[in-house]
């Protein structure tokens, strides 16, 4: 198993570089282009959430851990602050926004809130724990078997 750990101060300016880096590494470990793109989106969403909602204090930090196995990648993103939130409520709202099809004459909600629900659709396993000490999201993304 190979691994990569990163720790960063809560600044969105990090995110583009980190998502690209992890996605490229996943590609080098044999994930195909589509899977690597999904990983890029997952890293983006989870790190952005941890920075925006989990790191209110300037002294906060976000920790990203990636483990690369033969057939999968495990990724955790952890923050150490922010406000506790109701995970089921957030996911239900995200799912509702994704499913919403307003009747004629009505417009959709142009609001945020779909991110975690989209992440859940892109991965093979999704776990999230939140509490006073912060939020931990763990995902597993499986790799397609080699075509050769």
């Amino acid at each position, binding site marked *: 198993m190979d691994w990569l750990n990163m720790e960063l101060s809560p600044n969105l300016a990090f*995110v583009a570089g980190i998502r690209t880096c992890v996605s490229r590494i996943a590609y080098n470990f044999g994930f195909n282009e589509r899977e690597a793109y999904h990983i*890029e989106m997952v890293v983006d969403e989870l790190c952005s959430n941890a920075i925006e909602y989990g790191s209110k204090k300037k002294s906060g930090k976000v920790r990203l851990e990636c483990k690369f196995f033969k057939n999968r990648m495990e990724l955790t993103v952890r923050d150490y602050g922010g406000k506790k939130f109701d995970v089921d409520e957030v996911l239900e709202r995200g799912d509702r926004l994704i*499913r919403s099809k307003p009747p004629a004459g009505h*417009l*959709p909600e142009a609001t945020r809130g779909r991110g975690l629900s*989209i992440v859940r659709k892109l991965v093979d396993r999704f776990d999230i724990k939140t509490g006073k000490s912060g939020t931990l999201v763990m995902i597993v993304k499986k790799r397609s078997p080699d075509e050769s």
Partner: protein
Amino acid sequence: MENKGIKLEIKDAGGKTGVKLIVIDGELDAMTSVQLERVVEPIINKEKCLIFDCTNLKYMNTAGLVLLLKCYTNMKRKNGDFIIVNPNKLIYEILDLSGMFNFFKVYNTREEAISSIKENA
């Protein structure tokens, strides 16, 4: 209009009045969607139809999705139209699984998008 993440080109669409085409080159995320929103706001206030050509859009996250939805709702609110052109297959998949095709029209080419406006006029 350029930074390291995104480059925008604003064009008149086939000489049609009230229709603007924005060609997006780069990545649409939390940082660059703010830049695009600033460019788009005055266009939405003024024009009847807005077309995003996504041929050279390489990446989009949910901040980008929300911006697209804002463009769509703001154009619809004034009985205008909002159209996406030629997103790559990876972005297309994300648009699909996030339910965006319940709202947006997507065409393969600029020409198809522009002629659809004529047909609907």
